[in-house]
């Protein structure tokens, strides 16, 4: 194990990769069907988040703002702007749920959103997500926890064939779907919370919706308490799983830090076999495991000579680093947006919370970059190979259809990384040859 630093020593962030808690909250609410996320803050917080996700998913994003101004920031405790916002939203559309969450501005002035939510005569979930604390991943996690605490009914009976899946924020829509399908293949009924696989998966609907256009329904959320099992993926989802267990003490909890690579997927299969009592997994899964094994062998030569920088949310980098390490790639730098217990278990020469300026200073430590669109400039400047992952990935299409998880996605992921690493070597080798022939 290498060096792990949990906090940055600099006074500022230069070329940040950290994203904010309210943005994580927005995304979580968008995984609930016909929901309207309502950001309690200045209109810019909302506008930035809307543009950010629109560009990442190439989809319209439903979101509204309480539009706090300098005047209301002083005169209003939040209740009047929240009540007015809900009135204005419900004049035009009828959401199944309002997803109320705060920002740095309204946390600084100390608004009581719980009190304000009580004044609203409409289904509403509230959550405190200051953007001067945590990050996108924790904002998502806090929101899921709030949804569970405020909506799920207490139950005592369990349905052993029902599973609640709690995915972390970095799982793209198709990954949520693939994991749901994987679990369902064991004969289990799965409900994901949130479920981006039916809302932001980039499907062409009948018409443009002003609310989230899919996701888990509010009725399904009410009834999550009768599930026999809750599966949480990612350290950020532990609290949400614990909140759900409080709704029904008979529920069992399976936690996985991630589901990337052979070993992690094997663990999930073992646990699912234990849940169902079956001896063997479905044939399709067995086949994909063999394909992954083969890809691991095919890609190990390229990746075994590659040093990698993985940048992103902690739950994502934990999984990606593990999958790459399994085929001998060396993680030169695991760069995390925020601190997390995940960081201590990542196998890397260096694990740190930081920004892309830190990554730039350490550029001699890696050849392949795995990170968001902001790492592209860095990769080009220093001639590194690049695989785009994480938030945001602008200017590319198909982010929601990228699958890196389980046996199947793991195979795709290793192929893409190995090909990128090899192309990168060809390019730098080509450049050297051109220099040599020019000199000769």
């Amino acid at each position, binding site marked *: 194990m290498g060096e792990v630093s949990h906090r940055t020593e600099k006074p*500022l962030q230069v070329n*940040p990769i950290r994203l904010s808690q309210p943005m994580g909250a927005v995304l979580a609410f968008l995984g609930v069907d016909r929901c309207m996320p309502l950001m309690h803050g200045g209109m810019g917080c909302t*506008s930035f988040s809307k543009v950010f996700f*629109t560009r990442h998913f190439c989809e319209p994003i439903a979101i509204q703002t309480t539009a706090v101004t300098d005047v209301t*920031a002083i005169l209003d405790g939040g209740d009047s702007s929240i009540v007015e916002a809900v009135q204005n*939203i419900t004049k035009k559309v009828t959401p199944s749920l309002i997803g109320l969450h705060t920002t740095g501005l309204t946390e600084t002035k100390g608004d009581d959103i719980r009190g304000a939510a009580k004044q609203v005569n409409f289904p509403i979930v509230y959550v405190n997500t200051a953007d001067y604390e945590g990050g996108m991943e924790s904002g998502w996690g806090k929101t899921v926890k709030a949804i569970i605490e405020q909506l799920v009914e207490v139950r005592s009976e369990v349905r052993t064939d029902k599973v609640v899946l709690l995915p972390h924020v970095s799982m793209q829509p198709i990954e949520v779907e693939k994991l749901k399908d994987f679990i369902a293949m064991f004969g289990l009924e799965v409900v994901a919370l949130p479920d981006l696989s039916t809302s932001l998966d980039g499907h062409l609907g009948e018409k443009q919706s002003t609310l989230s256009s899919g996701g888990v329904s509010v009725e399904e959320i009410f009834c999550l308490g009768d599930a026999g099992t809750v599966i949480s993926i990612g350290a950020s989802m532990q609290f949400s799983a614990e909140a759900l267990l409080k709704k029904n003490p008979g529920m069992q909890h399976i936690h996985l830090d991630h589901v990337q690579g052979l070993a992690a997927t094997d663990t999930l299969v073992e646990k699912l076999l234990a849940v169902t009592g079956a001896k063997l997994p479905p044939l399709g899964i067995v086949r994909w495991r063999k394909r992954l094994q083969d890809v691991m062998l095919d890609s190990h030569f390229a990746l075994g000579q590659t040093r990698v920088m993985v940048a992103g949310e902690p739950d994502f980098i934990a999984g990606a680093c593990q999958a790459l390490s399994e085929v001998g790639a060396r993680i030169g730098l695991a760069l995390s947006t925020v601190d997390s217990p995940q960081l201590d278990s990542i196998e890397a020469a260096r694990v740190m919370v930081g920004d892309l300026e830190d990554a730039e200073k350490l550029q001699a430590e890696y050849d392949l970059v795995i990170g968001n669109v902001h790492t592209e400039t860095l990769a080009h400047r220093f001639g590194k190979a690049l695989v785009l992952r994480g938030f945001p990935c602008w200017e590319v299409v198909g982010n929601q259809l990228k699958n890196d998880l389980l046996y199947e996605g793991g195979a795709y992921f290793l192929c893409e990384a190995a090909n990128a690493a090899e192309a990168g070597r060809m390019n730098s080798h080509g450049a050297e040859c051109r220099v040599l022939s020019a000199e000769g």
Partner: protein
Amino acid sequence: MANKPKIRELLDESGCAHNKTKTSGCNATVPGATTGGCAFEGAQISLFPYADAAHLVHGPMTCVGASWETRLTRTSWPGRDLTQMGFTTGISINDVVFGGEEKLRASIDYIVEHYAPQAVFVYSTCVTAMIGDDIDAVCRQAQQDHGIPMVPVHAPGFVGSKNLGSRLAGEAVLTNLIGTLEPEVTTPFDINLIGEYNVTGDMWQYTPLLEELGIRVLSTLSGDGRVASIRTAHRAKLNVLVCAKSLISMPRKMQEQYGIPYVSVSFYGKRDTSAGILAIAEALGNADLIGRTRQLIAREEARLEQQLIPYKEIFRGKKAVLNTGGNKSWSIASALQDLGIEVVATSVKKATEVDKEKARQYLGDKGVLMTNPGAQQAKIIDETGADLLLAGGRSLYTAIKKRIAFADVNQEKKKSYGGYAGLLNLAEDLKNALENPVFKNVARRAPWEK
């Protein structure tokens, strides 16, 4: 604090036509029914193109974490392009409780040491404005210690819209930079370009022509801009306001303070480009220059017409519906007409009074000015038999339903449509849109729906 701009005064802009009828200025926001960016974003748009200056955002993560490296504003600055970098104090709960001034000062020092910028712009945000950090004092002290301009920008998001933020940014430049340095030489044809951000290199489509005429761009706010140049802006003979109503306060104030006249121009489309270049020459008031300008325009227009011949063949008899915002409601309409496309309707939902007047001028009596394009455009397409819809992504469904060609107006954020050469880019994109069968193909019925 004398340094802080007076917001009420900025909202009551005498250069804006609508302020004669409205009392609330540009500032009204409604909880639950508001779209659009904040004042900070407006300031960022207006000032970030100074690539030789560092732009330090004093606030929590959302402000710059979600917004750095988002706009393709190009620069010829040979040093590191600081426009495309994100600097933020990324304040924590500790700073909220105890104040963020020390952290801000340490951040400025760090930037000066590691990036040697020509200046540092320091942006206040909602949170740091609320907790009362005195960014003026920090900037003043840092400027003394480092000997480069430190410009406080008071445009926290919650004071208003993007538009207001742009004005506040202009105010910061006017107060802190303009008039603080003398140019090495001056010429009788020195101009400032105000509100030109050189997105996708728009500005470079016409500045070579200005140069050819002997017109010197002394400084810009802020496309391909330099801090050292904008400091000398008070010596220009003319301010040229480019397609940007939001910055109108600035040339007006410079006229009052320094006696510099201004003209307002647009460089979208052939007619507007020609009119813009000529307006600059005429305002500079030199007969020889005006003569040479007319010659240059004739030459450029002839060359362009030659290049447009194959496109005009394709566009003949084609009708378009335009759904976009602000000054684009007429500037793009004008460009489309230059290509021989009939514009049957344009959206004026977000346009100012002046923009609406101009849109009416360009479209004539028959053209429809849509005030609620979302509801109107489908019907207008049916009524007019339009062939092309130019709009934002939101209108995709209309194009699919009506099975007509669609062009994303926001492509201009990736590719320049400015000047004469930009019109060729627009023509090529529209040709591709009209020829692309995807909207018809996507609208195919599924076999199980037949």
